[in-house]
């Protein structure tokens, strides 16, 4: 497993050197700053907009970083032929794949953490200046960023799994499409419930349970509207964390199996 960790560390170093990812991070931070200029947005409480916008930007920037990072991890190694050097050493294929995945997760963690910490501090200052009637604990925003991270963890495993047998371009659109479908899982669930045709019902039911349910991780509403009461919040959050980890494990096992048979 040490081998995987070494590969992970290298992957993080390499990813942090990539300008495109840093650009996304910088854009994310810049837009968060811009969000705080929404003081004149009187239609909705200023802080509400700041929370919704800030968390949305972290999510969006995270999605782009995840997809662009993950779809290129394996193909880049193959294209540059560095994979031959690595695999000729006492490195098993699954260790290589797991190392790459852990590297992606580490990179994402650093990015999301950077944006989150920046956002939470900025929000705390903004809230202190605004002096709202019912202030929230700024640290509670980390619940949403945790969910965003778990969503990206799952998305990354999906993109890596697909990258084993698709080109980066195809993988980009495939991952993005599956991400959107996975975000619409409420609709597919409703269609499965309300559909009259048993074949249609079965299809949407299968979609609901098989496609990664990225919509599970939307946890912005209770933070934007702190007056709402979430039932079983801890259970909801912890089950989502487990869901992301288990589903990612499934995808990584399948990726390992596919990569194991692939001629490189």
């Amino acid at each position: 497993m040490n081998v995987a960790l070494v590969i992970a560390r290298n992957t993080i170093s390499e990813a942090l050197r990539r300008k495109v990812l840093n650009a996304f991070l910088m854009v994310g931070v810049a837009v968060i700053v811009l969000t705080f200029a929404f003081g004149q947005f009187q239609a909705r409480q200023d802080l509400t907009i700041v929370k919704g916008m800030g968390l949305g930007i972290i999510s969006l920037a995270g999605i782009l970083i995840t997809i662009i990072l993950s779809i290129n991890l394996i193909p880049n190694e193959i294209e540059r032929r560095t994979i031959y050097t690595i695999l000729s050493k006492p490195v098993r294929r699954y260790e290589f794949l797991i190392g790459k995945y852990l590297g992606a997760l580490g990179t994402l963690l650093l990015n999301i953490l950077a944006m989150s910490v920046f956002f939470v501090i900025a929000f705390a200052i903004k809230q202190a200046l605004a002096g709202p009637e019912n202030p929230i604990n700024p640290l509670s925003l980390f619940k949403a960023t945790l969910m965003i991270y778990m969503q990206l963890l799952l998305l990354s495993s999906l993109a890596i799994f697909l990258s084993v047998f698709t080109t980066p371009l195809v993988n980009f659109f495939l991952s993005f499409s599956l991400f959107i479908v996975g975000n619409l899982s409420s609709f597919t669930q409703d269609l499965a419930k309300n559909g009259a045709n048993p074949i249609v019902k079965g299809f949407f039911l299968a979609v609901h349970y098989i496609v990664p349910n990225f919509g599970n991780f939307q946890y912005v509403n209770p933070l934007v509207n702190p007056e709402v009461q979430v039932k079983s919040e801890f259970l909801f959050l912890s089950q989502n964390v487990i869901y992301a980890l288990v589903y990612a494990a499934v995808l990584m096992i399948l990726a390992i199996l596919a990569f194991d048979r692939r001629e490189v």
Partner: protein
Amino acid sequence: MRFNPSQRGSLLAAAAFLAICVVVLQARIDPLRRQPAIEPPKLGKVGGSLGNAGASLPFEYTLGALSGFRQVIAGLLWVRSDTFFHSGNYDAILPCIRLITWLDPNWLDPYATGAWHMMYNFTDTDQRSDRRYLPAGLALLKEGIDNNSGQYDMYKEMGWNNYDKIKNFSEAAKYYKLGMENDKDFDITQIEHALAHSYEKSGQTELAIATWEDAVKRHKAIVDDPKATPDAKARNQQGYENSRRNLFITRVRQYHRKTQTQPPVDVQFSAQVVRVRPKVLEISGQWNLIGSKAYDPTDANKPNEFGKGMLSVGPVDGARVDVRLQDAGYQMPAPTEFNFDVDSDLTIMQDALSTRGGKTVKAGGIYVWRKQEGGSLTPDQNKAQIYAFDPKDGANPGIPLAKALAGGAALSPAGQQQLATAAKVSFAELRGDSAKIADLTKQGYSVATSDRSILGKFKREIDMSKDPKMYGFKSDKYELILSINPASAPDFVQDRIGLMGEGWTDKRFLDTKTLPGVRLIRQKIDLSRTDLLGTERKVLYGSPAVVSTAK
């Protein structure tokens, strides 16, 4: 090194097992995720086309909503709907509201504002509400309650709309009570005060008193709480004083109305309906609208002294006759799911006509004679129950004051009291003051030589021809309902006729069945489509002699 078949099999088995775990986990997450606090209700249950909003909703809104900017997109749509409001494009607002409440179901303003639009702002040219939207407005508020059941705000909105617009006071009380029960941090003034008013208007005076007592205690507790903020203390001090005063007034009314609303007044309601031209009706009539002219001042600091209650009674202005024209047999449906597509074939018109001009004088009493209609009476004249008559009311019912005091007519004891009250001097002093008598005579003061009473009148031309979208007249049969609800009458009228109409009666139009426990004055007139669309002027109901229809 690659996996051998056995290892591959083990890994596949592990993946299959974990995949089953994923399905089980998803099944456990679904019910938690579908709570309104986390995820909006399903779009599938939304009724009504998205109309202009759907067409004008740019792709970036949709994309934004999908990518985690739900609340932000809702905020942008809110700005857009505000633009629609200011440009008069009301039809486009409702789809926006629909989308906003779907994207951000815990944002309360759009529910309240959307319902306000539907209940009040969709009107015809003469500002009469389009009542076809009322079920949709109530359904939107119901959805707001379902999505925010732990907060009092939506119950308050539902209560207020039932109280003010629908005039269903018991339903209003139900929602205010739910607001109190479901949110322990409810606003006492907004919820409990309104609950007490609703109880009173629905005839549950004992409950109203108990609610005021509770409100007094709650306000006092906050005022006395050392931890309460100065702002909260100030607000609750005001609330405390208001609720104490209202508690006392309610008790006084309860005490006096038992006796002072008897014997029942004969309302003598009559009406006439004239078709002026197609879709234009002139509705006029008269009835004996009387109420309290002076009330013994009450003092909340002396809670056991109820004073004398009504000091004088007489014709008053102010109560309204409700007029409703609708497709025969229409009943407003119960609010179910929000759907803003109204039935374009349905016709409902509702208006309220104020009653004015009732007056009376007894032989030997004082009145003011005016050569032409118009002018208002002074507070002193009102206090003395003096009414003004003019040629429109018929011949002068008496003679000028100076002439009467010179021996032309005798003043009754009541007339002498009226004169003393209005002139602010005793009758004996006045008799010796010829200048004052001349001045009062110049002002029109006169002494009645016979009894004269004029009933309060109502009259309005209702033009439905200017709004064909609202009044389609597609049905063959209609019903025109004229009604007076005592619960909606002003307090000074209820002081005499009672809260539920126990102090009035009518030989022809007293209705005790439509609203259980309420003695309505109600007249239903069946009309046909031809009656409403005919071109010639025609009296559709009533006698032309009741009220002159001349303009």
